């Protein structure tokens, strides 16, 4: 990172108050790229996450969207403590849980759980479903024997599975049912936060609704918070209280759901929203698509300044020189922040990229 961000970094997400469940401060995660030569050295870094701060409040659902490679999955795993953090902090209920040893992290694992994207890969094919769901009880030694079996069956029932099937193998369930198994496993120890890493992306649309409804019910019953990662904006709109849009390791825009969806300020957000399929064919035809030129640049060598500027229809020279701060733009509610020098104004129509777009700066 060559430029420093302004010190008063605005926070993404709602509830900046002190009783936030999770706070992430300036999280940076680089993956070293080992180079050749006799001794392998680090020749470059994949800048997966480059300074993200966010807050997750109790009982809230924060949606996290972005293209593939924007770092949302990496960010989620950093929060869950699955991969070590290069710099920055993750705080849970006031406690710093960044880069804790496995033993010290253990109690927090009961509070932070994860649901994975691939219903076929996230369950061990050689274990019975009852054993998979009962794993948290076994690991944290909270229930054993018949007590565990009862708890497992209760969980299965709660997520909509037949409790009589606990001796079956995952292969005998459909994709949607497997995700339910994953949900049951995550729910076992009554966590406070569940990180959902694209939980419905691999499911048929009709099943998606079922699983989303299940998640909503559980949130109500158990007071869960969700960090909901997806690339489908409509799904995120449906479930989230607040939305964070990421691009190439940084936050492009964030805020409560309605302001972001109704009045997106960042050109990237606009482009995403314009590309989302609309249910009404006439509205879809009438909508102007913003087509971004080029591919997502490599996170090993990201563009200088605003990372989006090479593809941005509104980019100017300043964009390639200075990183725009994440701040509230004129006319927006206090919790709606954007990182852009030339945010999209109300009623503005973004030109297609390539005509009046600024040249990419390096």
């Amino acid at each position, binding site marked *: 990172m060559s430029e420093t961000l302004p010190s008063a970094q605005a926070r993404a997400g709602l509830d900046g108050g002190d009783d936030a469940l999770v706070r992430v401060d300036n999280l940076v995660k680089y993956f070293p790229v080992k180079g050749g030569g006799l001794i392998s050295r680090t020749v470059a870094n994949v800048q997966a996450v480059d300074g993200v701060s966010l807050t997750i409040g109790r009982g809230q659902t924060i949606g996290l969207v972005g293209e593939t490679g924007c770092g949302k999955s990496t960010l989620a795993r950093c929060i869950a403590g699955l991969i070590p953090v290069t710099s920055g902090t993750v705080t849970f209920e006031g406690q710093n849980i960044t880069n804790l040893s496995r033993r010290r992290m253990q109690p927090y694992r009961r509070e932070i759980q994860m649901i994975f994207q691939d219903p076929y890969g996230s369950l061990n094919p050689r274990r019975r479903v009852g054993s998979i769901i009962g*794993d*948290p009880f076994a*690991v*944290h030694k909270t229930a054993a024997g018949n007590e565990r079996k009862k708890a497992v069956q209760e969980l299965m029932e709660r997520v909509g599975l037949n409790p*009589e099937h606990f*001796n*079956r*193998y995952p292969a005998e369930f459909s994709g949607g049912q497997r995700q339910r198994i994953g949900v049951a*496993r995550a729910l076992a120890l009554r966590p406070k936060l569940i990180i959902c890493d694209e939980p419905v992306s691999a499911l048929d649309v009709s099943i998606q609704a079922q699983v989303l409804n299940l998640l909503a019910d559980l949130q109500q019953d158990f007071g869960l918070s969700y960090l909901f990662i997806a690339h489908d904006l409509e799904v995120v709109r449906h479930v989230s209280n607040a939305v964070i849009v990421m691009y190439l390791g940084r936050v492009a825009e964030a805020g409560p759901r309605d302001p972001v969806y109704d009045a997106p300020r960042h050109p990237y957000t606009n482009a995403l929203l314009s590309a989302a399929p609309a249910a009404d064919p006439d509205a879809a035809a009438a909508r102007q698509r913003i087509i971004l030129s080029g591919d997502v640049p490599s996170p090993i060598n990201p563009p200088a300044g605003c990372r989006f500027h090479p593809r941005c229809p509104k980019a100017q020279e300043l964009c390639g020189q200075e990183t725009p701060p994440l701040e509230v733009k004129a006319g927006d509610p206090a919790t709606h922040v954007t990182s852009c020098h030339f945010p999209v104004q109300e009623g503005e129509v973004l030109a297609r990229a390539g005509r009046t777009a600024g040249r990419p700066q390096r």
Partner: protein
Amino acid sequence: MSISELEFQAKSVEDAPAQAIEGRSQWWLTWRRLRRDKMAVAAMIVIVLIALCAILAPVFASITGHGEAQVFPNIGVTADGLPVAPNHIFWLGTDNLGHDLFVRIMYGAQVSLFVGVVTTLIGTAAGVTVGLVSGYFGGWVDGILARIVDSVLAFPYIILALSLAVVFGPSLTIVIAVISFFSWAGIARVVRGQTLSLKEKEYIEAARSLGSGPWRIMFIDIFPNLMAPVLVLATLNIPAAIVFEATLDYLGLGVQPPTASWGNILASAQSFYQEAWWFLVFPAVILVITTVAFNLLGDGVRDAMDPRTERVFAAGRGRKRRKLAKPGGGPSAQFPDPPRQPSPGGV
């Protein structure tokens, strides 16, 4: 049927009370496939028979009235000091010292099977553990362990066996030690390879996110996915161990007479094959039959576990098997050949 009838049918199936159905485990399916493989079944029968021979050796000894180490210098040896041909007293003839060859062969089965099974158990347990640790932890642990495994695999076993025999004197213990030492390395290498790829799976990440420790993950999450190739390797390790043991005995480094083992019987037989073919042929035949049986069983287990391998001799009524072209009877990606353990049975 009308739509509503279909819907009704569907709903009633959904609502039908479901039993607690036991999942069909892979073992059950494997066993079923194995049962249908005629060669494997034949092999199993042979193995059981040989095991019976081993167990009943004392019974045979008492039936014939000839002990394992009992010599019969008068009726068991010819006037020229040569073994006696098979007759009604000595069913398979005698050896050059006048032992009853049949009884000794039965006792020899004890040694072979015992060594085969014990060394396989030890080697498998050690190999799986080392492979798991090496593959899962990676880093310098893997670096060291992998080097050790490679060195063991490449090491000429003969030097080790000879040296141990010199220092400690030849014995069964030496044989078991040497064979186990070389068995575990082959299994460790395969297990390590599989572990390396398995640990990237998402369900392992899920286990970590639950707070599972590395040992729990290795043995409860990863190991069940390894059991298939490990079982195949272990089964194929037994005949290798048996041959290895026989060879060590033959060289005089293992079980010493008067204890009978197929290897040391054959060692003595070498000098008399001209005059006493039975002395050589009978122990040789039973040794080869045992080895062939275990090899067939191992191949059968491998084919039963990996139903995609298209067998060269396809069982079943000549149904054309249009599976993925992976002609079986050989190693596949999931079931690699055991890295040639330096079992001298090979050479």
